[in-house]
């Protein structure tokens, strides 16, 4: 496939050509007639002139931006080279939610005249690619028929195509192609040179429309042979491989060669077929047009679906339980109105202005940080659908959902462009994306959850995340979430913390009133709880953590207890105080005391021996040997048969396994040190209750 060498693998040289004329006296800028581009060390010079169509370096090597040159200008020193352009969009650059507005499946080569205002039409002339613009009549001809003004597709006004606003074009005006009357895409072709209207072959069109992998046909061809090969590149089989396969065609029957070739691509079966065909085939390009099946690039698996549909809640308690589940999305988010408003205003203003910014949000777990942001985004999406604000992209990454901080780049890029690349490459591509202007640039809202996990020693991931929004063309809003309020001060070095800025917000733990309101609003008129019971839960949780998740879980458990307390599930009434008390007990009470009470006699004796030894030593630590002496003495007092050392060790290990005791490694045998993991008072209390 033809790659546009957007990464500077070779150095390109740009030179103004023609006579400069004064373009703006005040700014001391000069206009130029044309631009010469050449690759260092090569003879060939490409000249572009205003009015011509050009390809501009973009995020994606395979899909450079398309634009028409309007004017060249630069400053006195000739160092800065700028160009004014008229952008054209590919469909892939149209926002996802607007693609449907087209109302038909687009031609893969179709582009749209861009009428929006949001995009900077002044570009750096050095981002112009020297690759020739696809000629009409070739496979890569681009067609334009409609214009896009960020809200709707309109039929393109022919005047726009004819008119070249930048005066004094040495080149002839553009050819105008009348829009075709056919309702389906019979695109209008246009090219930089005057040509007759190419009549697209309907069969070609149909095929191109049906080919699932449009990338295959999207390459901008150079020469016809190469181009034919490039069509095929989607199947991962490079042109040279085909040629070499052809060369070795006669030997291909030997298993060795075949095996080797099979290894080189995934679909071995189809390769073999293709090779056979290759040998028989006289018409080389014809064969290449075949679409070969291959594994889809981004096959996403899913959990198999169930055979019997999930049962819907049957009674009030079940209904309440479903509503109280943390996963259920509530109709509204009560108690976070202020925070909601602040975040909303922040993001909205950035989206409206087309600028960027960072925000840091902190709060203990379960205080609704992520939920609030999702709510904000939902509202903003709605507003943008209503055309109240410009469209924007929302992407979300979570530090906990990646294995390594550098994976953040990969995930962001994948969500933005659906590309899968390595972390380093992704960083480079994102860097380019956020520092160069582009036609369709919509604002990107990036949510970074669990920010502290993105910490690296050099902090370059965080640095980049906060640096991009400050770029002029980035249009990136970064919302970050973490638990600690002073995270920027604690873990970030100065240059990172400075870029994060001071837009901070902290979510306070919920108070009992808020928790109560949350539950009530979730239940939404389903009467399943007594008022007092709710109040008890919310007070208890508010006093401990203010974690809404905990509160919901306790309520859920209480409904279960309520359901089981009666013999018949349907007869169960409201959730009462005692049910809630039981649920609270279950979740908050420490199990150590019960565990000690349920331990066997020797285990209890051993715990007593531990305490006795601690008292004797005046330390909170003793070796097993010392404790065991006490243990023997105690068992003599209790009138029990003394146990052997091995048994004693076994008892000690059992207590260690459930962490009533803390033990050293067991290879120390009798010398391992023993400590209590519970307070002495708790042990004594538990043991006393047993004896009574």
């Amino acid at each position, binding site marked *: 496939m033809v790659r546009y060498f957007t990464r500077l693998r070779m150095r390109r040289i740009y030179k103004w050509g023609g006579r400069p004329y004064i373009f703006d006296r005040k700014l001391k800028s000069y206009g130029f007639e044309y631009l010469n581009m050449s690759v260092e060390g090569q003879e060939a010079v490409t000249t572009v002139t205003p009015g011509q169509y050009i390809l501009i370096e973009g995020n994606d090597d395979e899909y450079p931006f398309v634009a028409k040159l309007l004017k060249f200008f630069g400053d006195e020193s000739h160092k800065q080279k700028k160009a004014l352009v008229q952008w054209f969009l590919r469909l892939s650059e149209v926002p996802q939610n607007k693609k449907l507005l087209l109302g038909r499946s687009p031609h893969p080569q179709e582009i749209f005249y861009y009428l929006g205002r949001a995009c900077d039409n002044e570009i750096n002339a050095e981002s112009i690619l020297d690759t020739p613009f696809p000629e009409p009549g070739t496979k890569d001809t681009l067609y334009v028929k409609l214009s896009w003004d960020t809200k709707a597709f309109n039929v393109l006004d022919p005047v726009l195509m004819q008119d070249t606003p930048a005066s004094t074009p040495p080149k002839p005006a553009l050819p105008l192609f009348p829009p075709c009357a056919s309702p389906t895409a019979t695109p209008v072709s246009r090219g930089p040179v005057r040509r007759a209207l190419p009549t697209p072959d309907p069969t070609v069109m149909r095929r191109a429309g049906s080919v699932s992998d449009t990338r295959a046909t999207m390459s901008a061809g150079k020469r016809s042979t190469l181009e034919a090969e490039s069509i095929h590149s989607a199947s991962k089989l490079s042109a040279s491989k085909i040629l070499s396969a052809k060369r070795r065609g006669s030997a291909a029957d030997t298993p060795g060669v075949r095996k080797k070739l099979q290894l080189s691509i*995934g679909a071995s079966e189809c390769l073999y077929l293709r090779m056979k065909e290759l040998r028989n085939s006289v018409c080389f390009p014809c064969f290449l047009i075949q679409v070969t099946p291959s*594994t889809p690039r981004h*096959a*996403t*698996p*899913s*959990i*198999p679906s*169930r*055979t*019997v549909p*999930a049962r*819907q809640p049957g009674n009030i308690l079940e209904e309440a*339980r479903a509503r109280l*589940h*943390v*996963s*259920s999305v509530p109709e509204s988010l009560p108690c976070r109105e202020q925070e909601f408003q602040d975040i909303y205003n922040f993001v909205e203003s950035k989206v409206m202005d087309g600028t960027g910014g960072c925000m840091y949000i902190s709060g*203990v*777990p*379960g205080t609704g940080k992520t939920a609030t942001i999702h709510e904000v985004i939902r509202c903003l999406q709605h507003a943008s659908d209503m055309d109240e604000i410009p469209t924007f992209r929302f992407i979300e990454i979570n530090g*906990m*959902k*990646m294995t390594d901080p550098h994976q953040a780049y*990969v995930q962001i890029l994948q969500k933005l462009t659906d590309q899968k690349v390595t972390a380093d490459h992704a960083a480079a591509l994102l860097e380019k994306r956020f520092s160069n202007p582009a036609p369709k640039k919509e604002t990107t809202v990036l949510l970074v959850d669990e920010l502290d996990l993105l910490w690296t020693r050099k902090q370059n991931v965080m640095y980049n995340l906060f640096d991009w929004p400050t770029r002029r063309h980035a249009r990136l809003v970064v919302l970050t979430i973490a*638990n600690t309020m002073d995270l920027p001060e604690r873990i970030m070095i100065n240059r990172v913390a400075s870029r994060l800025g001071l837009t901070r917000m902290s979510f306070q733990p919920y108070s009992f009133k808020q928790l109560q309101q949350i539950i009530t609003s979730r239940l939404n008129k389903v009467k399943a709880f007594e008022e007092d019971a709710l109040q008890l839960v919310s007070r208890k949780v508010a006093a401990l953590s203010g974690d809404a*998740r*905990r509160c919901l879980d*306790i309520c*859920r*458990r209480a409904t279960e207890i309520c359901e089981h307390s009666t013999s018949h599930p349907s007869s169960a009434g409201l959730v009462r105080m005692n049910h809630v008390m039981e649920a609270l007990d279950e*979740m908050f009470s420490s*199990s150590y005391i*019960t*565990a000690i009470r*349920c*331990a*066997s*006699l*020797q285990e209890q004796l051993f715990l007593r021996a531990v305490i006795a030894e601690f008292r004797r030593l005046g330390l909170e630590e003793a070796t097993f040997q010392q404790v*065991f002496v006490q243990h*023997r003495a105690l068992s003599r007092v209790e009138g*029990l*048969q003394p*146990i*052997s*050392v*091995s*048994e004693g060790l*076994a*008892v000690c290990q*059992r207590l260690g*396994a*459930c*962490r009533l005791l803390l033990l050293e490694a067991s290879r*120390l*045998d*009798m*010398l391992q040190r023993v400590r209590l*993991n519970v307070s002495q008072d708790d042990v004594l209390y538990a043991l006393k209750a047993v004896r009574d």
Partner: protein
Amino acid sequence: MSKRKVKETHMPVGECISQVQMILRERFCHQRLPEKPVGMESQHKHLLELLRRTAVHGESNSVLIVGPRGSGKTMLLNCVLRELLEVKDVNKNVLPVHLNGLLQTDDRIALKEITRQLNLENVVGDKVFGSFAENLAFLLEALKKGDRSSSRPVLFILDEFDLFAHHKNQTLLYNLLDVSQSAQAPVAVIGLTCRLDVLELLEKRVKSRFSHRQIHLLSSLSFIQYLDNVRSQLSLPQDFPDTNFYDEWNDDQSVVDVLQRHYNSSKDFRSLHLLLMLALSRVSASKPAIKPTDLLEASRVCMVDSKANILHGLSILELCLIIAMKHLNDIYEGEPFNFQMVHNEFKKFLQRKSHSIHNFDKPVVIKAFEHLQQLELIKSMDSSTAKIQKEYQLMKLLLDHSQIMEALQKYPQCPTDVKQWAIVPVLET
């Protein structure tokens, strides 16, 4: 004690015995689940109800089953799963995924295992997907695509849950629990652990996502219930092919004593099964019942001190060295000693008291000392052993006084002067 006399009416004794052996062994070796778990009815109900809701309603849940080793956590879970899978609707609707903290020692392996058990690798053909990161993204994507009403619920069973908490960043736990708290494919995360403090191991954001349901399995059986259990464990099932067995509870005091002692030391069934297994293995065609003596013998085998056995196999010289060490321990109150000190003590004994022991050469004594070290009856205290000469390495004795005295009592033909020395140390005069 239940005494089964297998009288042959239809079958020969040998066959009956082998039948009995088979049934009971299956029971004691945990190869077959019991009909229903004993002494944990409420926990059983709670867990069953919870999993049933996940399976039927598609409600996501997370729960921890906590209990000491051998308290029947896995047994309870397996019983519940068995019961759950018997329900017709559920049978084909759940995907259980079993993970064990001892096998899946890091998240990378755990993710591979989950993908394998969910049969997800087939979705992308035979494409072997590579990196850990891709793997995680892949699985999360899969779970995210599901929703409550249409996807099959996945039951993640994490055995040795506490070990998963030691994985880096607790990524796996966070993600599983996060799925269980968000509107994605329904999952139930069931953790089994014996650590009571397991929640303290979880990071705060992981902890917040856990539902805090804990099912504690703490056996509160009284001795009477314990005896009942022993009885039921030993009685044969109703559908035993030969009806000629009877159980007669034997109120033999010695048996009750044995069981009481066993009960005192540990209440879990695994150790009981071990005891009964030993007794069972003595049943044969010529002796077709478990007698109290069998149980006593089995108990003796169970309770025996492992070190005492080693001591019986020592030579007199080694025994003498151990006695010398014991005295050193007494003198220096448990401070470590080295070979030279032991040797001096031993020489003192030889000169003053001994009548029967030869005077061994020093290399021989060193050899004996090294042998003791190999048996791990003594243990070197320094970590860097290479630098110090062998004779001066500091050592500690890993034996209790009582063990030494007991061993001396039982040692065959132990010279009396050695015994005497063990009781009364050689005093400086």
